[in-house]
């Protein structure tokens, strides 16, 4: 280490790895991980959301799990709550849909209408 620039580079790199521990205030994505959800592939959904966010360089949106949301026939389900916007619950969120939601809703600001189950809090 010979310079401040190098120090800054390490800081930025490490911050990515510590991302999960940072405060994220732009929004939150909840992946329902009830038995039904897991059976329908919610774990793949979860990983896809995380992966897509990471690829897109989004670090201010939190991804958490929850229990069953009670919409067992449309599993896997996720809830996207962006700051100052009503939350949206999507159904049938497989790997591809998860990535699409991240791209269009989280990044683009456009709700993916055909996957929506409900707008506003449950």
């Amino acid at each position, binding site marked *: *280490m*010979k*310079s*401040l620039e190098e*120090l800054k580079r*390490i*800081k930025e*790199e*490490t*911050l990515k*790895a*510590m991302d*999960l*521990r940072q405060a*994220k205030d732009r929004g939150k994505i*909840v*992946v*329902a*991980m*009830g*038995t039904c*959800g*897991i059976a329908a592939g919610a*774990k793949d959904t*979860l*990983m896809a959301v*995380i*992966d897509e966010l*990471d690829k897109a360089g989004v670090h201010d949106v*939190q*991804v*958490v*799990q*929850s*229990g069953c949301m009670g919409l067992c026939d449309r599993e896997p389900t996720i809830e996207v709550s962006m700051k100052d916007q009503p939350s949206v619950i999507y159904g049938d969120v497989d790997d591809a849909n998860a990535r699409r939601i991240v791209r269009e809703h989280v990044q683009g600001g456009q709700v993916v209408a055909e996957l929506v189950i409900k707008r506003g809090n449950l």
Partner: protein
Amino acid sequence: MIRNQLLICAGGACITSGEKSVKDVLVEELAKNGIQDEVQIIETGCMGACDLGPIVVVYPEGTFYQKVTPQNAGPIVSEHLVKGRVVSGLLYRQPTSETRAQTREEISFYTLQVKRVLRNCGVIDPLSIEEYIARDGYFGLGKALEIGPDAIIQTIQESGLRGRGGAGFPTGIKWKAARDASGSPKYVVCNGDEGDPGAFMDRSVLEGDPHSVIEAMVIAGFAIGAATGYVYVRAEYPLAIERLEVALTRAREYGFLGRNILGSGFDFDIEIRIGAGAFVCGEETALLRSIEGKRGMPSAKPPFPAQAGLWGKPTLINNVETYANVPPILINGAEWFRSVGTAKSPGTKVFALAGKVQNTGLVEVPMGTTLRELVFDIGGGIPGGKAFKGAQTGGPSGGIITADYLDMPIDFDSVKELGTIMGSGGLIILDEDNCMVDVAKFYLAFTVDESCGKCTPCREGTKQMYQIMERITDGKGTPNDIGKLKTLGRVIQQTSLCGLGQSAPNPVLSTIRFFPDEYRAHIEDRKCPAHACLHLLTYSVVSEKCVGCTACARQCPVQAITGQVKKAHVIDQATCIKCGSCYEVCRFDAILKE
């Protein structure tokens, strides 16, 4: 791909209460559920709430699980991580309501704190230098090298930082004296010989954020013109030593120690010196002798270490918590540091909250926080609805702050006015069941034991004081004992060679000052009002209440209780050893303790 991080508190207290086994269970559960590659476990430094340990925090939610055991840890994986269901049984129950807190941010123990010294403790992996850097680590050093020694010292002086080891001496003045002193080489020393009973903030910093101390020492070395630093840690802190060793190695690998640091041309390195656990080695002149390999005995000041310290050379010595304050001051400036705390004692102070209080552990609050906030808001009040009686500050060198001063802002100067000292931050809460004479005797016993024996007043005087205290708590005190204690105390304070002796009488003099009636009760009435002094305690049977159930007689370990079934029993005072088991076992309130 990591989706969750589990932070397990690996501070000393959590390790003692089974952190390693909890971690093993979690690792096993993750594997069992096939998610070991998605969830990362990180052991951090102390999270502060030591009576709640072992603690596991699940990120990104920040869910705070407390009192986790190997038996109940499984669901954190199988429920929370697999099924997304919070394990509510492991959440913290708010003391004032039935609700449970989800995250640290909902617990008043945490929300009222201002974490500056402990900024990284419980947040980062102390073994990872990268995580330290990610939290602005070594940027203070970068700044320091840029602005140069004079500006560094000016910043520290302007910040108003005062030594956190006890006496509150202005840190900037020390640094300047060491810089101005003639003599070469110079040394930088970190006093990590934390010895006050109950205080463990320095251990927590060394265990949880060792780089903060290393960084500060490099800055100090650059500021005063030293090339060598020593961290003196007591042997009772093996984990701190281990983590410090790792941190030193990593800092060397990254070029924060060694030659030409950050391309500045400045060379500096640090060695660890392990103390054998003598309390007096926390006194700076004794500590320096100990580093030299000699018997740790204090010498008179002046000369101060800044003039003639290690091997007679100018030496800057600060305590761990003081150093941990330095890097953020360099980054954020003196004004930022002064933005909390009081005018004469800016910044925060870490306290080790212990004794008769709901939440015990490490808390960091702005200087000037009142005792009431510390004890009742952060500490959650006194257990069992008992009355607050006082807070002992400064360990064996300090004294008592009584209920009358609950609303007094605490800083270096205000506590001094009450005849006690801030000390390293030990704060022992006492309630109505604590006998103040007994408490003072306890601390005096500590200094008698830890006196190095070099000077007469401390070696002989404290021992004499202790014997008088023992006499009083044994019910054999005489009316002029209080006068003798005061005279001896005064002479010991005024003529002892070092701070240990000079402050040793404080607990006794402070309790005499604030609780004279308790002393009189012991001496004149042969009674201990708090029922704490065994020799002054009597247990007797209230014959009107006794139904003759024989429970007490059966429980008594020395057969001091006699009586026939269904008739009132009697305790033979000569045989009674005052163990209190009759009092505990009686269901009819028929045992009188007085």
